[in-house]
């Protein structure tokens, strides 16, 4: 049995006296019982309390409350009837629709004002209704007057427009033309004057530009003002502004009214007999119902959409209804085992994952709805009046804003990024290979075991490839960084002329799409290619780069150095230009040599600024599929050492490509993918954890 508190609270924490005398009596008794130490008296008080409760129907306050409720019902019915009549009258007068709304509201509020006034002291509900009506009756006449006045002016203007329709403003047009010519003359003269000033070197180029801009604006303004002398034009402009004003100001005024009302709502508590929230628990499975019981009808409507989603989309899908082929979450476990011939395990897998994600969304919706309904219900018991739609809308647009606007991103990330990644993750625990394309089963961590132990057809070469991948990543990236950095230092030397030229040329390897340059390098290094011939001439014998593993690897590293240096060069140049010159001057004074300056000032500063980007360069090359695949297709092939699945210049990502796309070893490819991804994530995570931003919590 719940206890009543003597006072009511609103959501700012103000206390209010109870108006419900019956509840007050109970609350006072509750308080006495609590503070009473003597057990005998306590029992007596408890008995008294039970007595009061039993005689609720005869309590004087309850009787008057019942009376009020009855009268209110009658009053509201009566109001409804008279409202209908009133609206009919207004409609017969051909009143504007907006105006009808405003006027009926005013009509209602006046009636309510007189009715509820008598009951202010009886209940807070009545007081709230009274205050609401009071505000309406204060604000609405002003709004209506504003609207009527505006409409009147607009009508006059519109009538004028009709009259002006046939007016031929010949005089004005001539006048305007003359005016335009004269203004243009002034504009031209002024412009010439400014240009002359510039020629004489009295003003800067910037000043010249600004001066001309200003003149142009002046000229345009003069024409705009002159235009208004035309009656037609002025009339048109007036109508436009008036319409806008009517729309916007009306909105603002109603908003002010609503805000005032919700102010009162916050200060007017609510009083109920209930002491324990229960229906938010009962309605937990049907979002919207709890909100409805809280009398927040618009909110209820919104949450009912969630209900529809849960019961018509998420749950049926998870149970296998409405699936394309799969069986919802169950399909995730059986993977179409024993199913029809056309049933594919992979489809069952993906639909299972989608079902899981939909279920998660459904559960989140249920939780949000419950928290909302429960909070409101609990607050009502405390005395806080539930917020109305106007306030809820404000809250959504304030606190809900980040959630609402991130929703599209969330959906795309879930279905385009997370679902595929989850698929790959789960796939790595299956045996999807050339023999098990349509139907495959769970096989646990066998794939990972094979990779780590270096066993099996696909796992055998894993460590070999990983080794080359690491060498490739380190060598190619470091080479690119070194070239780019040294070049940036050299070009940035203040005695070097033609900086712009060098910077533009050095930009090229980055600007030309990489796939084009890689393919062209591949062409040039092919047997009888341009570069091959040159190299052959220098060395003096015939060598075929693309058939020699070591030479291919060296060529790849050099090529990536060529490609990647450009980006580093540009990055470093940007940082170098931002280093303040006085640092170097100070170093000069202290007698530092050029080498000292580079070692102690330039390198640390550049490294500090670009470190995260350099790290991404390493991860980029780790996954640089294009360079490897487009240059030589991962070749040359060396079946004795590498088997049939990979070539000797393959890195992990191109190996995965060959496994999944060319040879259909999807499962083991997925396992390697997960291996790489985890490594990269760890790498990034550690790097990020150590960053200053994260440590200072300024995420």
């Amino acid at each position, binding site marked *: 049995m719940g206890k009543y508190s003597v006072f009511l609270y609103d959501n700012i924490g103000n206390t209010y006296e109870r108006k419900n005398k019956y509840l007050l009596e109970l609350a006072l008794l509750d308080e006495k019982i609590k503070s009473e130490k003597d057990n005998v008296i306590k029992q007596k008080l408890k008995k008294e309390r039970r007595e009061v409760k039993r005689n609720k129907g005869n309590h004087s306050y309850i009787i008057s409350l019942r009376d009020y409720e009855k009268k209110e019902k009658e009053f509201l019915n009566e109001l409804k009837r008279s409202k209908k009549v009133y609206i009919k009258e207004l409609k017969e007068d051909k009143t504007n629709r907006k105006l009808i709304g405003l006027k009926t509201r005013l009509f209602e509020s006046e009636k309510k004002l007189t009715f509820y006034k008598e009951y202010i002291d009886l209940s807070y509900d009545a007081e709230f209704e009274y205050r609401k009506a009071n505000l309406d009756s204060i604000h609405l006449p002003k709004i209506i007057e504003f609207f009527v006045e505006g409409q009147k002016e607009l009508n006059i203007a519109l009538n004028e427009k009709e009259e002006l329709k046939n007016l031929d403003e010949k005089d004005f047009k001539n006048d305007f033309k003359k005016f335009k010519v004269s203004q243009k003359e002034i504009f031209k003269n002024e412009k010439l004057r400014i240009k002359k000033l510039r020629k004489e070197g009295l003003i800067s180029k910037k000043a010249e530009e600004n001066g001309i801009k200003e003149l142009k604006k002046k000229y345009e303004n003069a024409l705009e003002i002159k235009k208004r002398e035309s009656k037609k034009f002025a009339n048109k402009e007036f109508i436009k502004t008036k319409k806008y004003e009517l729309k916007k100001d009306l909105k603002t005024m109603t908003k002010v009214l609503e805000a005032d009302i919700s102010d009162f709502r916050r200060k007017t508590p609510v009083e109920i007999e209930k002491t324990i929230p229960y229906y938010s628990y009962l309605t937990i499975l049907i979002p919207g119902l709890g909100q409805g019981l809280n009398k927040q009808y618009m909110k209820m409507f919104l949450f009912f959409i969630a209900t529809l989603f849960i019961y018509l989309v998420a749950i049926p899908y998870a149970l296998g209804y409405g699936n394309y082929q799969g069986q919802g979450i169950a399909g995730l476990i059986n993977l179409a085992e024993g199913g029809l011939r056309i049933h594919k395990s992979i489809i069952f897998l993906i639909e299972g994952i989608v079902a899981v994600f939909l279920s998660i969304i459904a559960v989140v919706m249920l939780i949000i709805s419950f928290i909302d309904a429960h909070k409101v219900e609990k607050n009502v018991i405390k005395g806080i009046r539930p917020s109305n739609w106007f306030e809820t809308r404000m809250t959504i647009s304030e606190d809900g804003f980040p959630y609402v606007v991130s929703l599209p991103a969330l959906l795309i*990330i879930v279905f385009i990024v997370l679902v595929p990644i989850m698929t*790959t993750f789960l796939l790595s625990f299956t045996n999807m290979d050339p023999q098990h394309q349509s139907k495959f089963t769970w096989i646990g961590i066998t794939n990972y075991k094979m990779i780590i132990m270096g066993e099996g057809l696909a796992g055998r070469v894993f460590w070999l490839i990983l080794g080359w991948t690491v060498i490739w990543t380190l060598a190619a990236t470091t080479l690119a960084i070194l070239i780019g950095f040294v070049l940036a230092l050299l070009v940035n030397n203040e005695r070097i002329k033609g900086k712009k030229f060098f910077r533009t040329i050095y930009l090229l390897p980055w600007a030309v799409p990489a796939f084009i340059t890689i393919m062209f390098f591949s062409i040039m290094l092919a047997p009888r290619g341009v570069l091959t011939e040159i190299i052959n001439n220098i060395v003096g014998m015939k060598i075929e780069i693309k058939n020699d593993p070591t030479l291919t690897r060296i060529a790849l590293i050099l090529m990536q150095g060529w490609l990647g240096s450009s980006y580093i060069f540009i990055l470093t140049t940007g940082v170098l230009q931002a280093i303040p010159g006085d640092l170097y001057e100070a170093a000069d004074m202290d007698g530092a040599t050029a080498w000292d300056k580079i070692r102690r000032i330039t390198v640390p500063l550049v490294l500090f600024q670009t470190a995260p980007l350099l790290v991404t360069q390493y991860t980029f090359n780790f996954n640089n599929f*294009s360079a490897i695949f487009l240059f030589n297709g991962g070749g040359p092939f060396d079946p004795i050492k590498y088997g049939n699945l990979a070539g000797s210049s393959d890195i992990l990502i191109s190996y*995965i490509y060959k496994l999944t796309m060319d040879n259909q070893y999807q499962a083991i490819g997925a396992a390697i993918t997960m291996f790489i991804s985890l490594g990269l994530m760890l790498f990034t995570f550690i790097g990020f954890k150590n960053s200053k931003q994260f440590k200072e919590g300024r*995420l």
Partner: protein
Amino acid sequence: MMKRKENKEKLYLSDKPPLTLFGKIGIFITYVILFAWVYAIIWPLFQMFVSAFNGKQQQYIMANSNFEFSIRHFQYLFTETLYLTWVKNTLIIAGTTAILTLIVVSFTGYAYSRYRFKGRNASLMAILLIQTIPTFAGITAYFTMHSIVSAIIPQFSRQMMLILIYTGGAIASNTFILKGYIDSVSTELDDAAKIDGCSNFNVYRLIIMPIARPMLTIIALWSFIGPFMDYLLAKVLLTSPQSYTLAAGLYTLVTDFRTMNQPAFAAGGLLTAVPIVILFIALQKQLVSGLTSGSVKG
């Protein structure tokens, strides 16, 4: 009068100390290195240029001292291959990707920069980690997802799938970049606007978006250029030459024996590269600033 002022003997006016002999040799070596690298960059590109215009080149590009100016490779490109279709496809895919990315990212970047909401830091961390996983990781799923969706909605083409994948891949990193940029804009502007009665959306539309426009331009540009550069996904997902993008299409000119024509590839590569290079040179500064400010600074 002016002439008299001119001194025949040049005065040393620089505020730098005069160069020693050692310094002069240093400068000379620097120039040599710089020009050597200029040569290293220009030479391969020049070779591509020459091969594209060399009428003497046959199916394979060979070391060849003969040169005869001709545009027949370009003619081949336009008449015998689907080059123009590929250009059109790439433009459509790139354009849609850029627009979608821009819409989605501009909201998330703003929200993450300006609001402290529940789950913000956790999701930011998640975004950061997710973006390290190569898009290629989900390739098996993309195939199946496409076949499922297109069985239900036949209009859902592989190109649309590609657009969605590009967009999904661009959201994470670009949200970070934009967030970093908006972080640097003072919140006093927002507060002032809010006091004057701007809604959240209007604060974004009227205050933040104009200020962030340079960064938004860069994001749009990067996501526009991305599909031009990507070869892997286009090759894997798109199956018919009719639907290829430039990268996938040009690749067929180098690998497929039936359509092999390397000079035509050079010509096509040249035509593709030139606009992008011009774009890069013109917008050098902005592109670079986009790179640096997007990083999580140490």
